[in-house]
């Protein structure tokens, strides 16, 4: 039943709002005017309390409050629709998707390290196989005291010339039965060969066996460089296999006193990662040997 508020004049349905004006809150007790209900509708009640009092009023006055109950039911239905309970069957279906995703991700977390470990092992075995199957090419272009190393990953040929070879005198620090061999060489290439290094060693025969010796580096020789009359810059290292200009210098090797058939053995290798040797050549020291030419403290 539509009524008009006594105070503000708003029109509203008194059955829906139980006589309470939705605008100003004034009670318009037209449908219950034979009962004094003012004690249920005091403005001192709080929201929850006044709602409770309303229900008490319905009970005490025998009013069935059907319109108000319908409001409750409508509210409950709309709340359930907006807030589904997860124990309901259709909502459980929806929760399976993140569950499956979690399981898949967990599977990946376990699988990923295993996959990485297997790939690494495969790669390692392939690398070893590949490295061992690598062919080292022997250089044959040696004439007298001169050789050319070329081909493979060498962009520019490296020319090596033996200039001098002899026995250096460094009697003090040498072990009994050893001697110091000095080799002077010149290395030249048109330009720098990136990613390569030129290793030198001395091949010789002693006591019926073949030996190879690496040259002594500047750390081993630093105390004896003044005795030899040279500086660190005069030593040839593996890292200057012709940088576009000619460089000459010395290699020093400690060998047995009875060493013979000495050859400068040259290997061009990769300068990074596997450091495989891909090219080798040699020059006999006989052509330039002069026992008295070596430096030292004699």
């Amino acid at each position: 039943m539509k009524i008009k508020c006594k105070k503000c004049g708003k029109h509203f349905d008194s059955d829906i709002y139980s006589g309470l004006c939705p605008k100003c809150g004034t009670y318009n007790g037209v449908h219950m005017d034979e009962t004094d209900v003012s004690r249920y509708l005091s403005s001192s009640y709080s929201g929850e309390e006044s709602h409770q009092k309303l229900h008490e009023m319905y009970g005490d006055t025998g009013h069935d409050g059907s319109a108000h109950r319908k409001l409750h039911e409508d509210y409950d239905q709309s709340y359930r629709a907006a807030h589904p309970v997860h124990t309901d069957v259709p909502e459980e279906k929806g929760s399976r998707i993140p569950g499956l995703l979690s399981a898949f991700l967990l599977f990946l977390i376990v699988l990923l390290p295993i996959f990485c470990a297997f790939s690494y092992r495969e790669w390692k075995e392939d690398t070893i196989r590949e490295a061992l199957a690598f062919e080292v090419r022997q250089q044959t272009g040696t004439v007298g005291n001169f050789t050319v190393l070329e081909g493979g990953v060498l962009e520019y040929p490296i020319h090596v010339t033996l200039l001098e070879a002899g026995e250096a005198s460094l009697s003090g620090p040498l072990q009994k039965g050893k001697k110091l061999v000095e080799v002077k060489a010149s290395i030249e290439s048109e330009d720098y060969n990136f990613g390569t290094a030129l290793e030198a060693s001395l091949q010789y025969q002693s006591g019926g066996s073949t030996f190879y010796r690496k040259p002594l580096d500047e750390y081993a020789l630093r105390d004896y460089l003044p005795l030899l009359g040279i500086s660190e810059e005069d030593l040839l290292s593996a890292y200057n296999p012709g940088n576009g200009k000619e460089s000459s210098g010395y290699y020093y090797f400690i060998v047995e006193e009875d060493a013979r058939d000495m050859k400068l053995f040259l290997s061009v290798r990769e300068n990074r990662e596997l450091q495989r040797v891909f090219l080798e050549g040699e020059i006999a020291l006989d052509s330039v040997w002069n026992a008295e030419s070596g430096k030292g403290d004699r």
Partner: protein
Amino acid sequence: MNQPVKSKGIHFVLPLVLFVFLSVELVICLVFMSSAKKRFLYEMNYELMPLEMKSITVTNREDLKEAYDCYGADRVYEVKVVWENIGPYYGDYNNGVEFEAKEDDGYIFVARPLDIYELGRRESQSQTVPAQKSGSFVWYVCANEYVNSIRIKERREKLEGECRSVEVPLPAEPGAAATVEIAD
């Protein structure tokens, strides 16, 4: 009434956490693989050097006793190993062999030159065998009088999963030598 709301949040957060964890794990795996590959490649020519022993000659070098750090009844032996370097790398002195006494009742060690100079040590370390060549290395070892034989072991097990170990008798007489040929 708030329970359903909280439950929905958990189902959203868990995959997100797993996804983040997976991404971090992927990065860790890739970084590990990358660094492991680099390390392996860098160390390959040191650790996987395929030097094969061909023959071993042990000589009693009593005459060198004063030149090495051996005293009293200890004996100095020159051990010469002929190698074949089957790989495309330089063979290195330090990756050659390991020496072991046969029994527990004696000791053995690689003898150091007694001189004060650095060159003595450098000299033995300058021994090498170029790629795919044969060559010899010489070590000096010191053993006490109770050791009658030594075991010489290759250090190439990482490459082929095996390393050969050869037992060599130690000659007691000064200047005497014993040679062991090793079959393929």
